[in-house]
C-alpha cells in the first residue's frame, strides 16, 4: 500500500511512537507571536527551562500592532505591553525577533513563506490556527495552544495523535473572476465549518495544480475553517520556483539535495485516504458568506437560505446568525449597501493579492459610502507594492495602503469595524464580533471586495469583467 504525502512527512518527523500514547513529533520551525507566547515563556521560567532550540524559533509582532504610524510607540497600553514583553522574552531566551520596524516583520503566515523558512517536507507550528497556510508548500503545519507553545519551546517536539487523511480534489477550469478564495469558500460551504474536523486535508486536482503559491496558501489557510487539523498540497515546479533564492532557502549543493528530496513528496497512486471528495471548478461562482461562520457561504448571485430548510434543532442557531447579520430568509446579498472593505489578513494580503486588486481598481474610485483599508501582510509586501507603484494606484482609488499586521481580521488593534456596519472582508472569519463588537462580516475574494468598494454594494465581479472586455 502506498503512502499519502501527509504520512511521508509525518513518518520522517516521528521521534518516538508508543502504543497508547500520541506520537512525539519533531518540529522544524516554531513561529511565535506576541499574543499566544507570554504565558508559555512564563511556564518555561517556572520550570527553569531554556528554549531548547532557539535557532528553530522565529518571532514576529503582528496580531496587536497598529497599521498606521508604526514608527511611533504603540498608543494602546496593553498592546504596547504585550509587544514589549515579546521583545524582552526573545532577548532573554535568544530568539530572533522580526519586530516592528524590522524589514522582515509581518503576519507570521506571510513572512514564513516569503523568507524561505517554510519549505516542502517540513513541520511547522505556531500558536495560531491559520498555521495551516504553510501546508501549501507540501508541509505539515498546524496551529497549537499556548501549553503546546511551551511544549515546543521546551522540547522542539509536540505530542500529537496522527489525524485521519482526506483528499479534496478540484478539477476543471475556473470561471473568469473566480479564484482561490472562492474555491475554498465553496468547499467549506459544501462540507460545513466542521466537515474537516479530525483530518489532514490534501488538496489535489488540476485546478489546484494551476494555482500560484499565493493561491495555494489562501486555500490551505482556510483549512481550519472546516475544522481540519491542517491542509497541504504536494510540491511541484511552482513550489520550487517560489522557494528558490529566498532569504533562508537552502543554497548551492544543499539546494540540489533539498529539491531531490522534495520531488519524492507526493501521495502514491495507491495511497489510502480515509475520505475523498471531489468538486468541479466550473460549479464555483464568486463566493460570499452571509452568516457567522465560514461555512455559511453562497454564490454571490444566490439567496440566503430559508430557516425552514434547516433541521428543527438547528433553526435557533441559524436564526441567531441571521439576526446578528441583519438579514432575512431568502434575501439576496447582491446590491446590498456596505460600509467597509478590508483587504488584508494572512488569507489575502500577499503581493499577488495586492497586484490583482490594483490592476482592477486602476482608474476607478471607491464609492462614497465605503471606507477601504488595504493592509499588506508584511513589510516586504508593503515595500514591494510601493516599488511597483501600487500605493499610488490605491491612493488615487481611495484605498489607502496601510502598514503590515493582522488588523481588522481580528480587531485587536484599533482597526475595528463599528457596531452594525457591514464589511466585505478578504479575511477568513465572519464570527460575531470578529472584526469589532457587533460588526458584520461578508467574507469574499480580493476581487469581489474591490468591486464592492467601487460600487458601494455587494457586487458580482463578473459584471465588471464583462463590461471591461467590451471596452
Amino acid at each position: 500500500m502506498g503512502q499519502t504525502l501527509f504520512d511521508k512527512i509525518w513518518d520522517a518527523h516521528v521521534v518516538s511512537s508508543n502504543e497508547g500514547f500520541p506520537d512525539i513529533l519533531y518540529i522544524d520551525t516554531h513561529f511565535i507571536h506576541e499574543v499566544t507566547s507570554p504565558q508559555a515563556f512564563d511556564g518555561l521560567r517556572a520550570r527553569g527551562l531554556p528554549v531548547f532550540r532557539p535557532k528553530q524559533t522565529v518571532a514576529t509582532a503582528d496580531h496587536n500592532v497598529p497599521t498606521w504610524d508604526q514608527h511611533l510607540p504603540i498608543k494602546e497600553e496593553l498592546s504596547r505591553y504585550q509587544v514589549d514583553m515579546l521583545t524582552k522574552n526573545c532577548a532573554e531566551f535568544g530568539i530572533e525577533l522580526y519586530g516592528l520596524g524590522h524589514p522582515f516583520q509581518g503576519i507570521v503566515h506571510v513572512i514564513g513563506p516569503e523568507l524561505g523558512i517554510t519549505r516542502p517536507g517540513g513541520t511547522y507550528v505556531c500558536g495560531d490556527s491559520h498555521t495551516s497556510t504553510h501546508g501549501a508548500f507540501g508541509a505539515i503545519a498546524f496551529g497549537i495552544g499556548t501549553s503546546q507553545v511551551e511544549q515546543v519551546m521546551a522540547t522542539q517536539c509536540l505530542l500529537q495523535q496522527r489525524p485521519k487523511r482526506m483528499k479534496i480534489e478540484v478539477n476543471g477550469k475556473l470561471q473568469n473572476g473566480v479564484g482561490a478564495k472562492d474555491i475554498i469558500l465553496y468547499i467549506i460551504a459544501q462540507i460545513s465549518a466542521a466537515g474537516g474536523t479530525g483530518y489532514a486535508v490534501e488538496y489535489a486536482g488540476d485546478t489546484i495544480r494551476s494555482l500560484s503559491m499565493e493561491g495555494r496558501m489562501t486555500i490551505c489557510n482556510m483549512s481550519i475553517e472546516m475544522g481540519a487539523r491542517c491542509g497541504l498540497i504536494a510540491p511541484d515546479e511552482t513550489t520550487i520556483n517560489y522557494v528558490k533564492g529566498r532569504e533562508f532557502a537552502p543554497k548551492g549543493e544543499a539546494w540540489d539535495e533539498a529539491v531531490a528530496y522534495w520531488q519524492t513528496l507526493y501521495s502514491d497512486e495507491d495511497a489510502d485516504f480515509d475520505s475523498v471528495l471531489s468538486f468541479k471548478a466550473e460549479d464555483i461562482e464568486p463566493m460570499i458568506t452571509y452568516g457567522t461562520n465560514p461555512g455559511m457561504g453562497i454564490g454571490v448571485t444566490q439567496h440566503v437560505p430559508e430557516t425552514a430548510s434547516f433541521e428543527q434543532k438547528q433553526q435557533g442557531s441559524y436564526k441567531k446568525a441571521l439576526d446578528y447579520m441583519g438579514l432575512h430568509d431568502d434575501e439576496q446579498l447582491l446590491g446590498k449597501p456596505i460600509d467597509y472593505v478590508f483587504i488584508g489578513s494572512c488569507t489575502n494580503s500577499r503581493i499577488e493579492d495586492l497586484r490583482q486588486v490594483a490592476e482592477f481598481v486602476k482608474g476607478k474610485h471607491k464609492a462614497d459610502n465605503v471606507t477601504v483599508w488595504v493592509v499588506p501582510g508584511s513589510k516586504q509586501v508593503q515595500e514591494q507594492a510601493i516599488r511597483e507603484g501600487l500605493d499610488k494606484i490605491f491612493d488615487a482609488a481611495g484605498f489607502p495602503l496601510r502598514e503590515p499586521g493582522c488588523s481588522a481580521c481580528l480587531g485587536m488593534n484599533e482597526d475595528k469595524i463599528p457596531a452594525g456596519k457591514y464589511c466585505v472582508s478578504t479575511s477568513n472569519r465572519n464570527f460575531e464580533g470578529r472584526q469589532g463588537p457587533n460588526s458584520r462580516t461578508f467574507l469574499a475574494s480580493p476581487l469581489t471586495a474591490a468591486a464592492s468598494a467601487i460600487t458601494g454594494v455587494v457586487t458580482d465581479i463578473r459584471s465588471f469583467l464583462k463590461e471591461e472586455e467590451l471596452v
Partner: protein
Amino acid sequence: MSTKIFKHIQTSVVPLPIENIDTDQIIPARFLKATTREGFGNNLFRDWRYDNEGNPKTDFVLNEPIYSGKILVAGKNFGCGSSREHAAWAIADYGFDAVVSSFFADIFKGNALNNGLLPVQVSDDFLAKLFAAVFADPHAVIEIDLVDQFIKIVATGEQESFEVNPYKKACMTNGYDDIDYILSKKELITEFEEAR
C-alpha cells in the same frame, strides 16, 4: 509540573444550546492582551453576556441566577475557530470543570485537556436529553466520571459512556502534563536530530 486533577464531578449545569460556538464568542480577541493565564473568566462570553455599556444582558444564561454549576452544556461543534488557549482558560477560570457537547473542534479539545477542563463528547440524542432535563429542572444534577468514562442524568439514571484518549485520561486523573512526558524522552530527541 502538575496540572489540576480531574476524576469525578456531580453538579448542576449551565445550558447553552447554540451550535458552532467559536472561540471569538468564548473570549473576544480584544481581551487577549493579558500576559498571564488568570482573570479571563470575567470576559467569558463577553459580548453575549454584557451590552456595549458593560451592563449584564439579563436573558443570557450566565446572567440567569437560576442556572449554575460546574458543567457547561453546549451545542454542536463547540470551540471552533482560533487556537487561542485563552478560551479554555476563560471557561476554567469562570469555574467550569467540564464542557459537554455533541462535537468539539480539534484544537479547543486539546487545549481544554491541557488545562484540566474535561471536554465530554456525547451523542446528539444524549445532548438533547441533557437540555431537556435542565430546561425541565434548572437544578438537575449531572454526574461525570472520568475514571469509568460515563456521564449520567442523576434523577433518571440515563447515562452514556464517552471516549477519551487513554494517555490524556492518565494525565488528567494524575495531574501529569505533556512536557514532563516528552522531557522523559529527551535523549531520543537529540538522537533524532543527530540522525537527520
